[in-house]
């Protein structure tokens, strides 16, 4: 079943097979990247029952909203191709009931700018695997916000390929893991061209007996002098029983780089709670505010479309209430 898709601006919706028949698009989609792509991407692509391709024309502006409530099969694909010098915003939301595998492709041509917001708010029994390949063209810019609040178990494996000079990629992850939920994120930024820039910020709050595993890897190859990268992973520990495992990895093969990573894992801070309590706010409400502040900070930094951010914040607030009900 096709996703509900609304497109404003100069963009078109194709099936994967239609896109493959177009020589130029086919070349992008069947790129040699597939062999470097995460396992989740390759397996979903191999078993793909339906693929949707959204193409933004060169020099166009587009606003795209995609909503999936039921999948076209156990494995499906969603691909975005942003033409040269285009400017686009994407809001992609899933609310699936079943267990699925999905491959996502984001391909930016030269000078393209894309702000993509992905919200996964699936049924709490759904198991999902998402493999993503994002390839950035010369001087292109990608802001990518991925938010996990639904589902029972979610395994994301993302590859960001920066093999053209001067591309910029900002990757934000916001997640709230509740009782019984397991989130596994495997993020890989590969810099193989000069003057490429990447920032990754991951924020997860863990409650109940949830588990969050974050593997954040950044590689700067010898052919990427002048590259600049930083990865930050933050966890807010809300429960005694949750597990939070973070592995921020850096592999640098060039001396002319700025590379760093940081991570922190902290519980709710007594000082912050005391400040709020001293102003007459109840305990649960205070914790809720701190939690919202933790995630909202990231969401606002992502500079996504206002409508998308409103929806995202509302979903997160709803989930946060289930952890800290109002007094």
């Amino acid at each position, binding site marked *: 079943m096709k996703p509900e898709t609304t497109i404003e601006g100069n963009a078109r919706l194709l099936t994967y097979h239609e896109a493959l028949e177009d020589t130029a698009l086919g070349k992008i989609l069947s790129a040699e990247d597939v062999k470097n792509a995460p396992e989740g991407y390759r397996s979903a692509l191999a078993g793909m029952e339906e693929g949707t391709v959204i193409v933004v024309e060169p020099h166009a502006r587009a606003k795209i909203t995609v909503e999936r409530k039921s999948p076209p099969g156990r494995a499906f694909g969603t691909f975005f191709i942003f033409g040269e010098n285009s400017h686009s915003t994407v809001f992609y939301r899933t609310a699936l009931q079943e267990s699925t595998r999905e491959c996502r492709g984001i391909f930016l041509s030269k000078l393209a700018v894309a702000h993509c917001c992905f919200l996964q708010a699936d049924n709490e029994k759904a198991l999902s695997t998402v493999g993503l390949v994002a390839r950035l063209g010369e001087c292109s810019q990608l802001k990518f916000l991925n938010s996990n609040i639904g589902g029972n178990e979610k395994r994301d494996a993302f590859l960001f390929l920066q093999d053209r000079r001067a591309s910029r990629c900002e990757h934000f992850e916001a997640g709230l893991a509740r009782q019984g939920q397991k989130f596994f994120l495997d993020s890989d930024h590969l810099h193989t061209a000069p003057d490429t820039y990447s920032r990754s910020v991951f924020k997860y709050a863990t409650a109940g007996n949830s588990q969050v595993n974050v593997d954040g890897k950044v590689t700067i190859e010898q052919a990427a*002098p002048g590259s600049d990268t930083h990865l930050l992973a933050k966890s807010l520990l809300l429960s005694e*029983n949750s597990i939070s495992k973070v592995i921020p990895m850096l592999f640098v093969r060039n001396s002319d*780089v700025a590379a760093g990573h940081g991570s922190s894992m902290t519980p709710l801070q007594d000082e912050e709670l005391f400040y709020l309590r001293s102003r007459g706010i109840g305990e649960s409400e205070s914790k809720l505010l701190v939690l919202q502040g933790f995630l909202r900070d990231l969401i606002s930094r992502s500079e996504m479309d206002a409508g998308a951010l409103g929806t995202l914040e509302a979903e997160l607030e709803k989930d946060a209430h289930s952890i800290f009900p109002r007094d």
Partner: protein
Amino acid sequence: MDENVLKEYGRDALLRDAPGSDSELHVGYRAEHAGLTLELVKEISEVKEEPDWMRRHRIKSFEIFEKKPLPTWGPDLSHLDFSAIVGFVRPKGQGYKPNSWDEVPAEIKNTFEKLGIPEAERKFLAGVGAQYDSEVLYKSLRSNISDLGVIYTDMDSAVREHPELVKKYFMNRCVPATDNKFAALHGAFWSGGSFLYVPAGVKVPMPLQIYFMMNYPGFGQFEHTLIIAEEGSQVQYIEGCSAPHYTKDSMHAAVVEIFVQKGARARYTSIQNWSRNVYNLNTKRAIVQQDAVMEWVGGTLGSGVTMLYPCSILVGRGARAEHLNIALAGEGQVKDTGAKVFHMASNTSSKIVSKSICKEGGVVRYRGLLSVGAHCTGVKSNVRCDSIIADSKSKAETVPVMDIRSKDAVIGHEASVGRISEEQLFYLMSRGMDADEALSLVVRGFIEPIVKELPLEYAVEMNRLIEMEMEGSVG
């Protein structure tokens, strides 16, 4: 640095490859064939006239060694040929224990004198030891320290003279032979090393020190260090390692076990400068009890391939661990080093600082593990790892793992990789320094947090060595 200071301490040679010499000249007894075999395990045990329990331990360890695979992660060990390693070489002069430095055979004494052992002992150490190939040749302890009940002897003597202590702590709860392939190998072929026992409440005022020399070509050194700091005691222990360069690859697979009992404080410092054809594959671990403090200070300068991850297991409430390490990798060197801390009790804290420099195609890799167990409250930890990558042939990597299973833990981690800042060099050069001086000052600043924890003479030599290694690295 003032040359007279260096001369006075006579430590010049320690941090460089030791002077080459006729390797057979020093040999008193050695295994007939190269290769790490069960026959050799039995032979070592027989030559050492060990008790039956140790012989059984060796044989069991060998069985584990044969079953365990090589690590599938980390540096390439495929060139490591166990069948070419000479597993046991007893230096000439062993069999009787010299009571004074004068009784040590002249040719061996010459080598160690170049390392400054007699001067060091007289000037600033509470006790000193020297291991040559497989066995400890010389060990002394100041009488005022031994009067306090401190035992500082070589492991072979400890097995004979303090069997109850050795049996209680040796490779059973801290680093069992089942831990990894090289620990099992060590359990089978161990020889020499230090045994240090500090009774409750005793504070050893000066560091104890041992020097390890690998002199025989293609040799495998497997010394065992066992340190027991009883309740409320304090001790500092320093190791220095060096070897001449031969064409055959050598191997060093030591095990260090440290027990820091309630309220005790132990510091273990190790400066490693093996020659570049040495595989340095050690397992070092401490079990830290309530309110005790364990400090690891390390400088990993030599060897070809190093895999070293000192580990602190904080099992008592309020226990603390500090890990400070410098790694330097030049051409052909792979330094896979890091630290592991397991927080298994409440209110425990740890700090890890790692500084790495790679140049001329060298590889430095920080690999760390920080684990906080469930229901451990009030845990605090901070990890900092910085690398300087001097040229584009070299590689710097960081792989820190953080596994947190407690709500009440405050964990911080920061890492950076980059070249030496041009702004800093420019600033210093604009004030009249030449490029090498400016570079030297920046590098000194980079490693300063660790060097300042070293004893003076090591700090001086470490700075000098790194300066020498970094010469001509600007640009």
